């Protein structure tokens, strides 16, 4: 699966992602790497518990490596900027654009 396909798969499979900010980062964005690095930013609690369950199912055939951060942790570390994280929606949109260009 390409990065775009993985992002589209996660967004389609995990409804709870709507309640969080989710990103892809690392080597998967360049089409290589041992695993798929995902960053999820949001509060702890029931929604996070549900999201973890959904991601576990969605990742049955994927080596997902998911980092969960509180908003305060992300702000302090500036992780999104320093790791060049790309929103999952934008990664998936890249796939849609490719499919449209190829007339699929």
């Amino acid at each position: 699966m390409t990065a775009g396909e993985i992002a589209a798969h996660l967004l389609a499979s995990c409804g709870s992602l709507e309640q969080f900010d989710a990103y892809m980062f690392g080597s998967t964005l360049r089409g290589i790497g041992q695993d798929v690095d995902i960053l999820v930013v949001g509060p702890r609690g029931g929604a996070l518990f549900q999201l973890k369950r959904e991601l576990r199912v969605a990742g049955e055939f994927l080596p997902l490596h998911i980092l969960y951060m509180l908003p305060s942790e992300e702000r302090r570390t500036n992780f999104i900027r320093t790791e060049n994280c790309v929103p999952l929606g934008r990664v998936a949109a890249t796939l849609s654009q490719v499919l449209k260009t190829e007339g699929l």
Partner: protein
Amino acid sequence: MNWQVKRAIAYFAEQPRLSAQHVEGDLIRIEVEDQPDVLAVISAANEIDAATAASYQEKHPEIDFLCGYRKTCVWPGDTIAHLQRARIGWGSAGTLTSAALDGKANTASHKSYVFADRLLRQYGRVQEVSREYDRIYRIKLRSGTVIRIGMIDDYEPNADAVRSLWDDFGPVDIVWNINPNGSPSPEAVDAGTELGCEVMKWEELKERLRTA
């Protein structure tokens, strides 16, 4: 071919001096420049129990290494003991890569925990070490005090890493951030306090073990 085997072969193809071919099922052969070939099972399991390890060994008696392809793969203590007795290396794809390059696949242990394991076992105040999981230890000090320790290898463990460790493995007295660089986030330390454990690096742990 299983997804994890495909990914592992592609991953090894990116590594200098290594190449890998599929043999059958979850088994691959890794060829290394100037080192013996390595036969490795690549597992997609979230946790590899001792029965699974034994069944792989029975199916492929010649294997050198059992690889949990997921970074999050959990290794119970009895699995580790079984594999070490059988002279089968165990750990992540990164561990397998280093071990294959060093010609030590049969004796390698998960590289995230190998130094922390050694530190605990060699520390003079520690009398007994029981490894419950790859990252969970129960140690008995010479003073008689028993401490349950959970390890996190992240550069900067966050609150979720501490809470997940607690949820997944049960209460611990100490969360040890074993990554030699970085340090736990303030939120991680607060999460530990809320749960009833302390989050610390080796220097603090050493002091704690000295005085406990």
